[in-house]
């Protein structure tokens, strides 16, 4: 199959999913609303903590702006969560509705169909999280363009490829264990925990910190926070942190694809992909 046809399949898959979601506008509104509400939870915890909440927060994180800190965390989390949710749930949906096996019979490689889903998820996730950050900032009285906004955006964009490659890894787990709902829910909280959605990963014990540092979203979150709020880069310079994300691009996609292919082959040899 040549590249032109592959891209055409990817765009068709992307368009199909965009058309489907355009029928559910409420869902798009919720995509924007949920990160704001999610950030609001720890903000309220801060408000109930008393007079020294902001100064204590500053001594723990490097900024007194806990509203911005939480809002950035939940907005980046929204992109990450969307990536995992859309790819994993797409696979599960195809399984449940009995169309996954049909996809394998089509003369198109699955990777292009998955790429279409990833592209759709990427556009939807980026739009909703940026909108959530802007609207949330306005509602909570923050300046959304403080700090280096474009640099923050660069951290997000560079982090997208390793992120979606990781979602492929997750898709392989869904194919294997066939229990998407609980796993996706657990993953959402697991991802938020590892990337430090509401706290710096400095609070982790050394081993857990190492695991968090091997997870690209951790670098995305800290990069965006450092660019906008000046909490401090892991390597004390933005280009070094960004270089780590570039390094992830060189490794994670191949690893994700390799694991997914291996899982796929093993399942097809045994029970088949249609069984759930």
């Amino acid at each position, binding site marked *: 199959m040549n590249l032109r046809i592959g891209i055409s399949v990817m765009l068709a898959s992307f368009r199909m999913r965009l058309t489907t979601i355009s029928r559910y506008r409420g869902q798009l509104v*919720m995509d924007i609303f*949920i990160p704001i509400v*999610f950030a609001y939870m720890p903000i309220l915890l801060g408000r109930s903590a008393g007079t020294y909440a902001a100064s204590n927060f500053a*001594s723990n994180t490097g900024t007194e702006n806990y509203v911005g800190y939480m809002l950035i965390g939940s907005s980046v989390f929204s992109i990450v969560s969307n990536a995992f949710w859309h790819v994993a749930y797409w696979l599960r949906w195809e399984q449940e509705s009995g169309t996954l096996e049909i996809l394998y019979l089509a003369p198109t490689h699955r990777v292009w169909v998955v790429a279409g889903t990833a592209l759709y998820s990427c556009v939807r996730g980026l739009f909703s999280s940026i909108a959530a950050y802007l609207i949330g900032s306005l509602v909570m009285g923050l300046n959304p363009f403080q700090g280096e906004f474009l640099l923050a955006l660069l951290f997000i964009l560079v982090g997208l490829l390793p992120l979606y490659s990781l979602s492929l890894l997750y898709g392989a787990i869904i194919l294997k264990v066939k229990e998407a709902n609980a796993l996706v829910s657990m993953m959402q909280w697991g991802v938020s925990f590892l990337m430090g*959605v509401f706290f710096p990963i400095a609070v982790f014990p050394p081993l857990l910190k190492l695991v968090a540092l091997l997870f690209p979203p951790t670098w995305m979150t800290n990069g965006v926070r450092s660019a906008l709020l000046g909490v401090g880069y892991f390597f004390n310079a933005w280009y070094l942190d960004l270089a780590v994300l570039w390094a992830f691009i060189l490794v994670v996609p191949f690893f994700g694809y390799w694991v997914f292919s291996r899982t796929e082959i093993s399942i097809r040899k045994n029970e088949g992909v249609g069984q759930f």
Partner: protein
Amino acid sequence: MSTLNIPQASKISFIQAELSAFWAMVRKELIVMLRYPVNFVASFVQTFLIVAVFTLGGSLFYKNYASQAGDAGNSGIAVYGLILFLFMSDTLWTIGYNIRNEQVQGTLEQLYLSPASKFANLVSRVTNTLIWTGLLSITGGILMTLMIGELPFKNPLLGLYLLAMVLSGTFGVGFAFAALTLVIKEASQTLANFMQFAFMVLCANFFPFRSLPPFLLFFSRLIPLSYGVDAFRSAMMGFPEGMPELAPFSVELIIVTVFGILMPIVGYYLYRWSEKEARRRGNLSNY
């Protein structure tokens, strides 16, 4: 004699049939649950992660979290709030959204073609929620106590009564949500997400109501479940100063009792109405 006995016998056999159908459905739900062991493990891990995310987030506002947050009564507020949040969240997904799963898998219409009790079908889902979420709540409570600090444990009987009433009302909300799922179909997933987060903020599960800005507090006061959360944790914490926050305890007790008795009836009525509408329109299996 025989004319008197026939209706009685048929009444007994009707009750027996209802109970038998109910038990069969509970067993079926339990078997399905046991077939997915990863779900078990994932739910436990998820509870730990929820606790960890909010505890670590909250700890940043204190110099010494364990002692300061404990002094402020935050441990009781958060742990008892977590228990109610887990039930609330599971009810929305397990009772309400499960109807959608039956639609997607194509088994909902088949259930309606069978002579089995529709009531038993809906209530059987509650049993699993009670067992499973009960276990999760205990685990979550213990974990949170370990992370935040000593948990106040006063008035257990009053607390148990309030918990039973809140759960009963929450199941009613689940029935009503199941009704809504039949109407709005795919959008119900979004709505369940929305409701989960909206309840989390408006019912102040993890923080005191006084942290809410006035316009949100206004909406909190409109939700009976908020009074349930407030009354339950106030009672379990031995009514510390400033609690309950929304209304005097006697008023909250009445609201929670009425909610616990009426909501399941209203929820079930709504479900039957929605189901009849779907059958009349012929779109029960449409999704």
